[in-house]
């Protein structure tokens, strides 16, 4: 901690010195190289500052994000390094926080973690400048998501649209069905597709979060946003009748073995990107229920988004057309001007638009025009997120304590997996969910 503060002071000094036009003299070893190299303008206020950003992105997503970081470096002169946390951000950050050397900025995949880390006093409140940027660019709903106990700690910098059903257009054409708009149609079409000899559904049974996404869409649509909020905060029990209804609806879809590609046992072993390749690469199944980022895998499998790989909004189960979003919240774990400047940049229109031009990104920033997105489908998605406004809901499991909603083999993930393995026992699943929820919310 003391080291961090010292770095902050040094960074502050650097800013002051740089303003005078002199090369800064700091202890940071990385400082010398970029500082002496370029001398373009006085705008590079963060020369010599080194920042570390930790996020779970890998591969293409990481490369794209690094381009945004590069733009920040070019603008301010700060050197930003990226650290990948792997799938389990909590497992990566926990020891680093305990060890007293957290990254400057962490990008949390779940707003639930904001509350958790705020309780541990591991987060730094955002500076006034960042707050102003958020007020200018975000609706209050998003701001609230990054807050804990009334204090704003984080800014949602990347959104994921989780209310989509992706399908292989050829498979639906062969079966002669239209993309479903209601749940009943979805079940009926699935039967027809199964009759045609293609498995209608590719579920990612090994990735528990895909199952919670499915549940959330069905629940939001069948029970409505108010109940959704109550359940998300565990104000109503999981044994509530509305949960029964939602699980019954899911049961209609998953209880038939012929609906699941490669059978139930293999479905339980299929993780997230693999289930997409079963639809697009191997052409074995017709539909996969997941978020916008399915596009990345679909393209890798050789399908063209918009031609072979298409999607429809998640079919209406009840009254509400569900819009469930996921997203990543950037928080500061060290209170330095550099970290705040980077957060401000990420929350700004400028930073958002650089990112938006790259594939696989959706911005929750209302001032980032959807026109920036590289393809029409993403533009469409961007518009829905911005316009959805009040009725939009955040991924429920990501709002829950992570022991319940975000851990492999535990809580909601495990119970929904058990439910998928044996969809007949709705009551048992509900009781198990309630028992786990009680433990997590105590």
């Amino acid at each position, binding site marked *: 901690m003391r080291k961090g503060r010292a770095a902050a002071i040094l960074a502050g000094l650097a800013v002051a010195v740089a303003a005078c036009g002199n090369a800064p003299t700091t202890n940071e070893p990385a400082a010398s190289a970029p500082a002496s190299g370029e001398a373009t303008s006085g705008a590079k206020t963060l020369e010599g500052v080194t920042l570390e950003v930790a996020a779970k992105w890998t591969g293409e997503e990481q490369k794209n994000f690094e381009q945004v970081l590069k733009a920040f470096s070019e603008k301010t002169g700060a050197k930003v390094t990226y650290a990948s946390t792997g799938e389990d951000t909590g497992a990566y950050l926990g020891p680093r926080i305990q060890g007293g050397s957290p990254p400057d900025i962490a990008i949390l995949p779940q707003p639930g973690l904001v509350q958790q880390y705020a309780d541990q006093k591991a987060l730094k409140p955002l500076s006034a400048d960042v707050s102003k940027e958020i007020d200018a660019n975000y609706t209050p709903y998003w701001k609230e998501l990054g807050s804990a106990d009334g204090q704003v700690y984080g800014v949602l910098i990347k959104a994921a649209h989780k209310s989509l059903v992706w399908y292989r257009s050829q498979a639906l054409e062969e079966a002669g069905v239209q993309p479903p708009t209601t749940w009943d149609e979805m079940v009926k079409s699935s039967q027809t597709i199964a009759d045609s000899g293609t498995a209608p559904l590719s579920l990612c049974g090994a990735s528990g979060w895909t199952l919670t996404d499915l549940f959330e869409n069905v629940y939001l649509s069948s029970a409505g946003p108010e109940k959704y909020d109550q359940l998300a905060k565990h104000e109503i029990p999981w044994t509530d009748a509305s949960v029964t209804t939602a699980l019954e609806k899911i049961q209609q879809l998953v209880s038939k073995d012929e609906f699941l590609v490669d059978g139930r046992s293999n479905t*339980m072993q299929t*993780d997230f990107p693999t289930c997409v390749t079963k639809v697009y690469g191997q052409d074995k199944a017709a539909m996969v229920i997941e978020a916008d980022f399915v596009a990345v895998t679909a393209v890798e499998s050789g399908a063209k988004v918009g031609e072979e790989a298409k999607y429809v909004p998640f079919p209406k189960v009840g009254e509400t057309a569900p819009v469930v979003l996921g997203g990543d919240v950037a928080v500061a774990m060290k209170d330095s001007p550099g970290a705040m400047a980077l957060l401000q940049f990420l929350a700004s229109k400028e930073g958002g638009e650089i990112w938006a031009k790259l594939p696989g990104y959706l911005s929750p920033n209302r001032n980032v025009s959807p026109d920036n997105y590289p393809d029409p489908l993403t533009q469409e998605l961007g518009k829905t997120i911005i316009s959805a406004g009040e009725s939009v809901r955040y991924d429920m499991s990501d709002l829950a304590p992570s022991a319940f909603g975000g851990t492999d083999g535990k809580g909601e993930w495990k119970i929904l997996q058990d439910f998928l393995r044996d969809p007949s026992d709705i009551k048992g699943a509900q009781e198990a969910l309630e028992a786990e929820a009680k433990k997590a919310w105590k």
Partner: protein
Amino acid sequence: MTERLDGPKVPPENPSGGPASGPADTPRKLRLGPSPALAITFLLPAALLLGVWVVYPIVYSIFRSLFDASGNGFVGLDNYVTIFSDGGMLRTIRNNLIWVIVAPLVVTTLGLIFAVLTERIRWSTAFKLIVFMPMAVSLMAAGVIFRLVYDGDPDKGVANAILTTVHDTFSSSQGYPEARPREGEQSPVVAEGGGVVTKQPVQAGQPVLIPIVGVKPEVMPSDAAPAKAATGGDGLSGTVWFDFTPGGSGVNGQVDGTEKGLPGMTVEAVSNGQVAGTATTAEDGSFRFEGLPAGSYVVRLPQSNFEGAYNGLAWLGPTLITPAIIGAFVWVWAGFAMVLIAAGLAAIPRDALEAARIDGASEWQVFRKITVPLLSPVLLVVFVTMIINTLKVFDLVFIIAPASVQPDANVVALEMWRVSFGGGNNQGLGSALAIFLLILVLPFMVMNIRRFRRGDS
């Protein structure tokens, strides 16, 4: 080196288990070594490192295990109570028990067999090298390898590829796996006992329609011709066809223009539970029973028509996962056990074996009565080392078990990590598990250390 040379002397002492008497009565008065101050100075660095890396963490873990997740609230022994009251945790302990009983036994036995057999073959060094090779692979990489080996898809996982190849050499399936009768009120047929039967008994002269759906494109025979609805005529006849028109314009339960027949289906005419006649469908899906006495029959497509290709076992499913992971563990450690046992074997006095052989003992008797007893100290060391290894097994389980079956494959070391860092963030409970694990390992550690000490004397 010197111990190795002394080695042959050790075994005769050991079987008797007699007290090691020699070194204890070294005279105390006569000090040959350096002064205590000097000794302490030299011991200090090691003691310091041990203190920082071993003693402090253990003490702190004990301390931490008495507190809750946040580390602020004192909970006493609650964390330990949780370990033994939580259902998932009990399964974890049960898994560990299976590990501790099965894995060391299999590893030691295999190591012994390899070691004894390699002594007799010419290319023993090459063989030993190959068996030992997995030790050079990190457990993590071994996990990745075995995750693939156990993959459910026979095209990817070699375990299932072997099973299916063996299975298919003895029986091959020619049927229509996963195909099923069209469901619904209007459908004239219904699924029964894995096969398909007509709902109503049928008579000769009345064509039987058997609509089948869900035929996978890859099992559709290339010679299948468009189906023709049988027109009746003499005898009992009908059509088995794929009741699905691409594009979906067909009418359910009717033979539409382009719908294809399903050739090669076995059709049975059943009367009072007895099969009265058998027929096989032609390329257009039509069948006709010859020489069937008049009367009403139930037409049945027996289950054999729908038997899918054998797809091997669900290695990574909840039931087989622990044995599967133990298999990977054995693959890694068998070489290690073999090398240790082979070294012990080399140290066995040949004359004892020779004497036994001259006395007329068979090879099996020599192995059973001479080799194994003489080897028993080494075997015990290997066995105990393996027990310690199995108790702390983590990476293999973490990597091989898919997330959905990880709770079924869980072991204490993995659970410790999961509750501490893997989302639960309850380091109090995690520390309690660590201490529990330590207590489990401790007796075996003490045993091993004792053994080493005795070996030194």
